[in-house]
């Protein structure tokens, strides 16, 4: 199993550890509910160093990104980031990712899911016909997400860069906690505000950043948060998780990602997605809220009142903020209207549920 720069810290803190995407990662430190509420109400720190980072450099970098991703990266100026996805030739999703514009037209950082690093690298390399310089810096890059309504105020004293007024999906680069060349971006996967902090994993950078963040944060209630709470936090906000809600067989339009699918430019399988847009898709990713007692889980089937299959659950949990069982599911288009009645098959029993609007938590 691979380690992050912080694996030993998680173990020393007594975290429940498990393998995730080949890395030994903290699942939970105390309790999922407690960690979840810490982020919603105050601030928490996630080690997400397992994520992958690629640098794309050279005059053809933007053109390559435009061809492999669905969003319009030509809109990016230095200091701006963008959520996007890469499509395969069938119009499925290779991965969802963030694109950071470091130098317009010339230098970009792509942040991809840990489980897809190799697949994405090969996919982009295959399309790199114009000699873009590509570097996989995943193993040399540390990443902490400090998330929650009070996160930024806790961290501001650690840098001269103005991070308090960073707009959503923008970033700055510079000295942070005495470490040079740190990228701080107003992004995250919790919907509770905060920043993500990318740094070079060399010398004692990881140790300094971690200890400085907690030196200031601990007296204010900052806590380390595991991947389990990361999952409940993102699910309440309806953020898709690759491998659960989106994958090689789901299209961005089915997944509700038409807002990052721009037909003003060319990209892989554009014509397939254009047809889907014109004709409508047969199924869509929707929110599900249980009416009967039960918790929807990844892979559970959805049925109509007659007991016929109409879809399947992609993610589900007991929402700590709402105290309700919620999930996301692909359902046939006749059932996508909020209020539609569906049945989730939980251990062979069809339990009543309702289609609801995403996000579950505003």
């Amino acid at each position, binding site marked *: 199993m691979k380690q992050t720069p912080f694996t030993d810290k998680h173990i020393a803190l007594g975290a429940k550890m498990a393998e995730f995407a080949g890395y030994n990662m903290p699942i939970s430190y105390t309790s999922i509910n407690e960690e979840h509420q810490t982020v919603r109400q105050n601030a928490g720190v996630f080690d997400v160093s397992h994520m992958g980072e690629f640098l794309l450099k050279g005059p053809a970098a933007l053109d390559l990104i435009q061809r492999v991703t669905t969003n319009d990266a030509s809109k990016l100026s230095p200091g701006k980031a963008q959520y996007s996805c890469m499509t395969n030739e069938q119009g499925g999703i290779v991965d969802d990712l963030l694109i950071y514009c470091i130098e317009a037209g010339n230098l970009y950082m792509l942040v991809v899911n840990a489980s897809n690093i190799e697949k994405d690298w090969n996919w982009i390399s295959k399309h790199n016909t114009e000699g873009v310089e590509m570097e996989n810096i995943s193993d040399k890059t540390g990443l902490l997400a400090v998330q929650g309504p009070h996160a930024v105020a806790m961290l501001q004293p650690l840098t001269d860069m103005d991070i308090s007024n960073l707009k959503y999906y923008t970033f700055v680069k510079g000295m942070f906690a005495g470490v040079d060349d740190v990228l701080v971006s107003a992004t995250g996967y919790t919907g509770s505000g905060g920043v993500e902090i990318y740094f070079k994993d060399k010398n004692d950078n990881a140790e300094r950043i971690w200890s400085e963040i907690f030196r200031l944060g601990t007296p204010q209630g900052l806590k380390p948060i595991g991947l389990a709470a990361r999952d409940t936090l993102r699910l309440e906000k309806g953020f898709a998780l690759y491998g659960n809600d989106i994958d090689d067989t789901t299209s961005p339009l089915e997944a509700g990602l038409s807002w990052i699918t721009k037909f003003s430019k060319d990209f892989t399988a554009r014509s397939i997605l254009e047809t889907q847009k014109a004709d409508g898709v047969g199924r869509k990713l929707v929110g599900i809220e249980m009416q009967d007692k039960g918790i929807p*889980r990844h892979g559970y089937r959805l049925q109509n009142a007659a007991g016929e299959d109409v879809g399947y659950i992609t993610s589900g949990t007991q929402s700590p903020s709402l105290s309700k069982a919620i999930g996301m599911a692909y359902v046939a288009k006749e059932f996508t209207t909020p209020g539609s009645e569906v049945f989730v098959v939980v251990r062979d029993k069809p339990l009543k549920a309702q289609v609801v609007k995403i996000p579950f938590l505003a």
Partner: protein
Amino acid sequence: MQVPEALKYTKDHEWLRIEGDMATVGITDFAQHELGDIVYVEISALGKELQEGEVFGTVEAVKTVSDLYLPVKGTVTEVNPDLEGNPEFVNQDPYGKGWMVKMKLSNPEDVAQLMDTAAYSIHVGA
């Protein structure tokens, strides 16, 4: 991790407190820790005689779900009513307030095949 004396254990991480031909059953400290925050406990087999290893209920936690297996042949006679409103008792006090069911043992001599404290401690590496 707590593994109290005077209880019997199964490899599926359940404990039994034996009193004559009756037993109180719950899940161990190890099990509640593995499951994480428990949302509810559903007992599906009240009043039915079940074989050893048959599913008598399920535990739903935030992150996962797990079946409950009857440790020995018998009949579930009572369900802990407090878990309906306070499922967190299973996390907080797995051997006390977090007990799940009481059961009548079909063959009290079956308890001989269960693990004792020492054997269970080895089983979970405690």
